[in-house]
Every structure is written in structure tokens, then in C-alpha cells.
């Protein structure tokens, strides 16, 4: 007879109250500080990612406002050159590495299991580890700022200026080690997403039914797995040069400054797509709810997501048009940079058609999503201009490019993210955000953003170079810079309104119910906020819009959300085949654990040791991390990894 520990036929039924109670007991995190430090619940981790990312957004925003005060007029003295250089470097690092990607990880961590019909991510403990390392790496880099030695060579950190010869402080050591550290978080997080997608979806959740957010995060994750090693290596080589006198970037000894640029941009260009594709997914999934119709062109949009990233790996050289690379190669990379506009156009027309052919319900979330289309187009066409090699020789390193990246990163990341918060806040907390304040919030941000950054294109066309801490009045940039500074402060007020709305609505917001927007996807089938086990029974998915099937009236079969697989022999969820989503294993999920935290503490000790040359501390940190890892991996009976010896 088969051993039920090793194989069994899952029951198929409706959940009873007693069963749900058992699940609650199995999955809940213990209360208090112990639970807080050891939880592996993807929803808790997702929220932490969001909150932490917003904290870094605020820090980066304050740096930005200081810079705008310095640049508000010519020859001002708010920041000296040393402070200004650290401010713009930390601003870039905060926004690009510590806000824009982690905030999307926050959404995806929270939402993936819910939209895929699973009870957790594939590796819950790895998820916690990814979060702790992210926090530690972020604080590590900010520690540099606290002692006045923050990174000071901009976010792309060109050598040889970053070499010890020209940059003898600890500034670049904070950056090098911090980025290697952060890379660990990104990598394990990405692997977690990929395996989650491949293995832990609800039965019937085939690849052609995945929400676009999932496509976006999946694409970004695969890209990260392939791209992050490049930048980790680059920073590792830089650190070796600085500490041990190797010669990778040391010119007199044959070091190659352009190798840095290749390694950095081979990573950073795909990375920019990783910052926007999941956010575009948020719009693709959110817009249809408020347009009251399915997304126009699901398959083209999904394919465009993947195509963008594939092309995105082939255009890194367009950051290096002015480095003396032969013109034939430039023509090729310029062409590729222009062609990459095609998949973006697919998404734009799909969204526009969705609005035209639907009945737009004007909520705050809708306004953020719809306005993103316009901002996306502006950021897209300015990017298309920089793809044209001879034009880019003028545009590059001027404020035109600064305007471009802000339309990309604020337009295609921040706006969808804030829209996403208005959209999913009810799911996260059980309460609605205030719509009236929301409208004010939207218009303040939208107007502030465009006042700040639309004129900045002209600032660039009139020749203002990036990264200058001051300028003289006879350059003709005074008025435009003053306008930008005013816009930046309006935008900041808009962001503050979001935070105020969140704080107020957490206490007094209207109770949401399971599905306040009458949205079509699985996450809205569970209570708000969802129980720790997400789904009492594992749902069965038969279409892209499980909760709209009855009204769209086209599905011959129906998804099942109230009856499904009962899995309650411990923490369990279903494992499915990668393409079709057919169940092929009952997975045992780990319980809460301190090991992710302990491992992060060990790694932090290690990196601090390397930073300040306390080698004993580095070794001790490695030992702590090792012990945590061994305890973590020790085979457990509860996970079906070894036989439980019954007494």
C-alpha cells in the first residue's frame, strides 16, 4: 500500500468552517516580535517591500529636492560640489536600485500567489532572505551617506574616476560592496519568481491565462538572472582594483575603462526594462477592470513584453555612442534601439483600444493608469530620438536624457505603482483609499511632474549638461530651471498626499469587501485582506477572467473558486506542470524561520568586514551565514524530506 507521506490523491470538495480553521492554525504567523522576525508569508514580505521601497523613494526624493534647490537659479550655494555629487549619485542609486525594482517586487511578491492560485511563493524562506538582504544592502549604501562618504560617481560609476587614484575615500567601496550585496537579493528573488511561475500555479492556469503582471515580472526575473552577474562582476573587479591592486580598470597597466561601460550597460539596459515591464503589467491588468472589458490584444501584449526584453539585451551600446566605437557598429545598435519601439507601440495601442472599446470608470487608479499611457509615449519618443546616433551625440549627457529617464522611471514606474496602490490597497488592508483625496493626489502629481520634466527637454536642447552642480546666468537656463524646481516641489506634495491618504484610510477607510472593483482575476476571489493560506481550496482556472466568466458569457467551461483541492496535511500547495498547469505534485511548504534573518545578519557582518578591512569580522560573518544555511537546508520530516520516525 502506498505511503500517504509519499503519495496521495488530494480531496476535491468545498471548504468547511472547521477546515478553514485548521488551515488558519497551520499557516498563521505567530504574533509579536518573534513572528515579525521569522515570517515567510509572501503577503507580509510583499507589504514590507512596498513600505521599504517607499522609504527609499522618500530619501531619494529629498536628495532630488535639495538638488533642485541648488539648481533653482544660477550660482547658488545650497550644496557644494562634493555634497551635490553625492546627492545625485545617491538619488540615482535610491530610485533605480532601492525603489523602482523593489517596489515592483513588493507588488509581485504580494500578488503572484494570489493571482496564480497558490498558497505561497515557491521558496518562502528565500523570499524573506531576499527582503532582509535588500534592506541590509540599502542601509549599507546609506551608511556611506551618513558618514559623508556616499558614492559620488553617479549611478553608472565610470572608471577611472571611480578608481582609488582619483577617488581615494570609502565612497566607491560602499557602492561596490553594496551593489554586490544587493545583487544577491535581486538574484534569489528572481529565481524565486521563475520557479514559482514554473511550478506553483493553480490547476488550469496555463501560460495563455497568466495576468500580464506575471509576464512582466517573469520577463524581468529571467533578465535579472542573466544580467545581474554582469554588474556584480564589474563592481567586484572594481573593488579588487581598489583594494588589492589588480589592473582591470587601471589604465597605465593596460586596464580598460570601456570594459566597465560594457559590463555596466549590458546589465543596466535590461535592468531599465526590468523596472518598467512589471509596471506595464500593472496597467495591463488594472486598466481592463476600470474599462469594464478584457484587455485588447492579450497575446500581442504578452509577446511584446518578452520581445522588449530580448531586444533590450541587444542595445546596451546605445549608452556608449560617444566612446569611439566604429560607426558601422553604431548604426546597428542605433537601428536596434529604434526597432525596440515596436513592441512598446503594441502595448500603447492595446491600452488605448481598451479604453476606446470599453466604458472607462474614472477612479483614481484609472487616472494613474490612463495617464501613464501618455507619459509612456513621451518617454518613448524621447528614447527613440536618443536611438538615432548623430542626434544622440548631441542629446547624450544633457538634461534631455535626464528628462527622458524621468518620463520612463516616473511615468512608467511611479504612476503605475501609485495606481496599483489605489487598486490593490483594498486587497492589502480591507479598506478603500479615499477617492476624493485620491483625485487631488493624482492631479497634483500629474501637474507637478509635467511642470518639472516637460520643460526639462528644452533645458537639454538648450545645452545644459547633466551632473553639473551649478551654472552661470549667461547660459540661458535660469527660467527653465526655476520652473522645474517649482514642479518638483508640487510633485513632492503629490507624493505626500498619497502617504497621507494611506495613513488616514488605514484607520477610517470604507470597508472594501472581497472584490470592490468587480475585477476579474483570482486575487479578488478571496477575502480582503486574504487569510494567511490565501485559498481555502486550490481553485481551478478555466479562463483569463475567472470572476467575469458568467457575464462575458463565452467560456464553455467555468473556473472553480469555491470548490477545489483540499490540502491540509501541513502547509501544502499544489505543484503544476510548467506550461499547461496540470497538477503533478503536492508540495510541502516551509514554516516560519529565523534562518533568513540570521543568514542576512551574517552576510551583513561579512560585507561590513570587507568594507572596513576587519577580516575577522568578515570570516565570522561568513561562518554565521554558513551555519544559518546548514540549519535552513537540514532535511525536515514536515517537508517530506526525510522519514519522520514515529515513536
Amino acid at each position: 500500500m502506498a505511503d500517504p507521506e509519499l503519495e496521495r490523491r488530494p480531496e476535491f470538495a468545498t471548504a468547511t468552517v472547521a477546515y478553514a480553521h485548521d488551515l488558519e492554525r497551520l499557516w498563521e504567523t505567530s504574533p509579536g516580535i518573534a513572528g515579525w522576525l521569522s515570517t515567510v508569508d509572501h503577503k507580509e514580505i510583499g507589504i514590507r517591500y512596498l513600505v521599504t521601497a517607499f522609504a527609499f523613494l522618500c530619501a531619494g526624493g529629498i536628495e532630488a529636492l535639495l538638488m533642485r534647490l541648488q539648481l533653482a537659479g544660477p550660482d547658488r550655494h545650497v550644496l557644494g560640489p562634493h555634497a551635490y555629487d553625492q546627492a545625485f549619485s545617491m538619488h540615482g542609486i535610491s530610485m533605480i536600485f532601492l525603489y523602482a525594482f523593489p517596489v515592483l517586487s513588493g507588488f509581485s511578491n504580494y500578488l503572484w500567489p494570489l493571482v496564480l492560485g497558490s498558497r505561497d511563493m515557491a521558496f518562502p524562506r528565500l523570499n524573506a532572505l531576499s527582503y532582509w538582504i535588500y534592506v541590509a544592502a540599502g542601509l549599507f549604501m546609506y551608511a556611506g551617506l551618513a558618514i559623508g562618504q556616499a558614492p559620488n560617481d553617479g549611478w553608472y560609476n565610470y572608471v577611472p574616476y571611480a578608481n582609488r587614484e582619483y577617488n581615494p575615500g570609502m565612497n566607491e567601496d560602499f557602492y561596490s560592496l553594496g551593489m554586490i550585496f544587493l545583487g544577491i537579493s535581486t538574484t534569489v528573488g528572481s529565481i524565486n519568481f521563475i520557479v514559482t511561475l514554473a511550478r506553483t500555479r493553480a490547476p488550469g492556469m496555463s501560460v495563455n491565462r497568466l495576468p500580464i503582471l506575471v509576464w512582466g515580472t517573469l520577463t524581468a526575473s529571467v533578465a535579472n538572472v542573466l544580467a545581474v552577474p554582469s554588474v556584480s562582476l564589474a563592481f567586484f573587479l572594481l573593488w579588487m582594483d581598489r583594494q588589492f591592486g589588480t589592473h582591470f580598470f587601471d589604465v597605465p597597466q593596460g586596464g580598460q575603462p570601456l570594459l566597465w561601460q560594457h559590463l555596466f550597460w549590458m546589465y543596466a539596459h535590461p535592468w531599465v526594462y526590468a523596472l518598467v515591464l512589471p509596471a506595464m503589467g500593472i496597467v495591463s491588468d488594472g486598466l481592463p477592470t476600470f474599462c469594464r472589458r478584457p484587455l485588447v490584444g492579450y497575446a500581442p501584449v504578452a509577446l511584446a513584453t518578452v520581445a522588449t526584453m530580448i531586444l533590450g539585451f541587444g542595445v546596451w551600446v546605445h549608452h556608449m555612442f560617444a566612446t569611439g566605437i566604429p560607426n558601422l557598429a553604431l548604426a546597428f545598435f542605433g537601428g536596434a534601439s529604434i526597432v525596440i519601439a515596436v513592441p512598446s507601440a503594441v502595448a500603447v495601442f492595446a491600452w488605448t483600444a481598451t479604453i476606446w472599446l470599453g466604458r472607462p470608470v474614472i477612479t483614481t487608479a484609472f487616472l494613474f493608469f490612463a495617464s501613464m499611457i501618455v507619459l509612456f509615449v513621451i518617454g518613448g519618443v524621447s528614447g527613440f530620438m536618443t536611438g538615432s546616433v548623430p542626434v544622440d551625440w548631441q542629446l547624450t549627457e544633457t538634461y534631455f536624457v535626464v528628462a527622458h529617464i524621468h518620463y520612463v522611471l516616473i511615468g512608467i514606474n511611479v504612476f503605475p505603482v501609485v495606481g496599483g496602490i489605489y487598486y490593490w490597497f483594498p486587497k492589502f488592508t480591507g479598506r478603500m483609499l479615499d477617492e476624493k483625496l485620491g483625485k487631488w493626489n493624482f492631479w497634483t502629481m500629474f501637474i507637478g511632474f509635467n511642470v518639472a520634466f516637460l520643460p526639462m527637454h528644452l533645458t537639454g536642447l538648450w545645452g545644459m549638461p547633466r551632473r553639473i552642480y551649478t551654472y552661470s546666468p549667461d547660459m540661458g537656463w535660469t527660467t527653465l530651471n526655476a520652473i522645474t524646481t517649482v514642479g518638483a516641489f508640487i510633485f513632492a506634495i503629490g507624493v505626500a498626499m498619497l502617504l497621507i491618504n494611506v495613513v488616514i484610510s488605514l484607520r477610517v477607510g470604507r470597508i472594501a469587501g472581497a472584490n470592490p472593483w468587480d475585477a476579474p482575476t483570482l486575487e479578488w476571489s478571496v477575502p480582503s485582506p486574504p487569510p494567511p493560506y490565501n485559498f481555502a481550496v486550490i481553485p481551478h482556472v478555466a479562463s483569463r477572467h475567472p470572476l467575469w466568466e458568467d457575464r462575458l458569457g463565452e467560456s464553455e467551461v467555468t473556473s472553480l473558486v469555491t470548490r477545489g483541492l483540499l490540502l491540509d496535511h501541513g502547509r501544502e500547495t499544489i505543484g503544476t506542470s510548467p506550461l499547461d498547469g496540470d497538477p503533478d505534485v503536492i508540495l510541502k511548504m516551509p514554516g516560519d524561520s529565523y534562518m533568513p534573518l540570521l543568514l542576512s545578519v551574517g552576510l551583513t557582518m561579512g560585507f561590513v568586514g570587507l568594507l572596513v578591512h576587519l577580516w575577522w569580522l568578515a570570516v565570522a560573518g561568513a561562518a554565521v551565514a554558513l551555519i544559518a544555511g546548514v540549519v535552513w537546508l537540514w532535511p525536515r520530516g514536515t517537508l517530506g524530506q526525510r522519514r519522520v520516525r514515529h515513536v
Partner: protein
Amino acid sequence: MSIRRVAPAAAALLTLLAQPAAGQRPLGYLHGEGPKAWPVVQLTLGLLAIACVVVIVTSALVVVGIWRRRVTDITDIRSVPPTRAGGGLRWIAIGLGISGVALLGSLIWTVVVLAAVNGPSRPTRLTIEVTGQQWWWKARYLDDDPSQQFITAGEIHIPVGEPVRVRLIGGDVIHSFWVPALAGKMETIPGQINETWIEAGQPGIYRGQCSEYCGVQHAHMGFLVVADPAEKFAAWRAAQLRPAQVAVPQQTGATLFVYHCGACHTVRGTGAGGTVAPDLTHLMSRGILAGDVVANTIGNLAGWIANPQGVKPGTRMPAQDLSGPELQRVVGFLQTLK
């Protein structure tokens, strides 16, 4: 809103933006002053026009799309049932078709311009080796005859109407050579030699600026390109080749200069032969000081020597321990370096 009506309007608006007051925006690049810049300016304006049209049309589509069937009462979203009206794939197909044509056209235009500015149409007679240093520019005028070579800094003179080859050397970190009115950027990278070329269509003073972040005084790494008629350029060149003449009254100042400044600066004809800082043999022929931080006046010069870190925080130039009278003598000497 037809494209045919919008496009010329946008182009006219852009031309307006570009044309007036070029002199008031010395680093602006919507106006070109030479054969290398002109095709690029046209391309820039053309792409800008396409970009504006695309933004206006899609924004209009989004706004109108929202307006025409909007639902503003959001109290009960369930009262608007979801439907699957219309396919909508046509939108994507048509949109892609139009974008494809625009992209292909832009690509062809780009390649044409790239070929046009790839190299000068005529052989060049003058090659200048320009070195980017933290935070100033060195220019060496090359000549087959070594006695005809000379070095200057901060101000590059070229003959008008003649293509000039520029060899770019990275002196320490990466900088970028940029004279917006004449040509786009080219980085100066240590360990490799990049080449570009410039040509001024008419006489004038064109502002240049380092445009790759290179350290604390990246903001103050400007230079001037002075385009002179052929005979004036020849005269300037001949003057630059001459060593300095130290008049008797300036002897003390010159001695002080050699002692305090000569390890870094060169003044040909004196004992000052340092090479890490600008060659000052003809300092008074230049309009700017310290990478374009200040104009070259006697007061600015004295202030700069007395307190370099105050004028340009972080500059490599150290303050010298000069008394008031000594400073006066050094400045007096420098004033004679015409």
C-alpha cells in the same frame, strides 16, 4: 486632427524655439554653425517633430477615448457590467503600421546623416590633439615639423570654413569633448585615442564643455573654440609659437612664478616647464580662466591665484604662499604674456 495639419505647425513651433537668441544659449544645439552640425540639427528637429506629433495624437486618442464613454459615478462599479465589445486588434495593426513607417523613415534618415557627418568632405590640413584633464582642456597643434608644434589651453583657435581633425586623449579620467554648435560629443578616454572633426561655417566664438561626469569640478570644464578667418588664424598661430619675452621690470615676478608655479605650468622662454597644468606662455591671449569659471581679467587672475579653492572648490591648483606684493608681481608678470 489630421497629421497633415499638425506636423507643419509643430515643425514651425520647433523652428521658432530653435532660431532666436542662439547667442543667449551658448551650449544650445538646435542651431548649427558648420557642415557637421547642420544635417544633425535638421535630423534633430525632424525627429522632434515626429515625436511631438506622436505625443499629441496618442494623447488626444487617450483623452477622447476616456471622455466619450466615461462613467463618473463610481459608487457601484457593478452597475457597469463587463463586456467584450469589438475586437480591437485592428487598433494594434494600424498603430503598428503607422509607427513602422515612421520608424523606418527615421532609421533611413539617421543612416544618411550618419554617413554625411562621418568624416569631412575635404582632406584636413590641421590636426589638433586635445587632452581632457581634471578640469581643463589642453590643445596641442600638431605639425610634421616639431618646431611648428605648440601647446595651449582652454581656447582652441581654428581657421573658419576648413575642416579640422581633433585627436582626443584622456589625460586622467574620462571626459567628453563637446562643441554643440559645431559637432556632437566624443569622449576622451585614457588608454585610447578617439578622433572627431569640427568645422565652423562662419567666424565666431563657440562654447565647448566637458559632458561626461569627471569629478567635483565637472561643472567648470568649459573651453572656447575661436573660428578666425585664415589670415587671422595664421597670425594667431605664429604668435603662439613665439616664446615669452620677460621684460626687465617683470624679472622678479617671473622668478617668483618659476619658483612657485613652474613645477606645474610652462611659460616657454622661462625656467617654468611643468606639464601637469595649462601652458601659460600666451595667457593674455585667452578670454577665460580656470576652465571657464571666470573671465580673464586682472582682478579675477589675482583672485584665482590667491585662492584657487575658493574660486573652484576641489581644483587641482594648490594655493601658493605668496605675500600681497609677491602676488602683485606674479600677476604683473602674467599680464605681459600676450
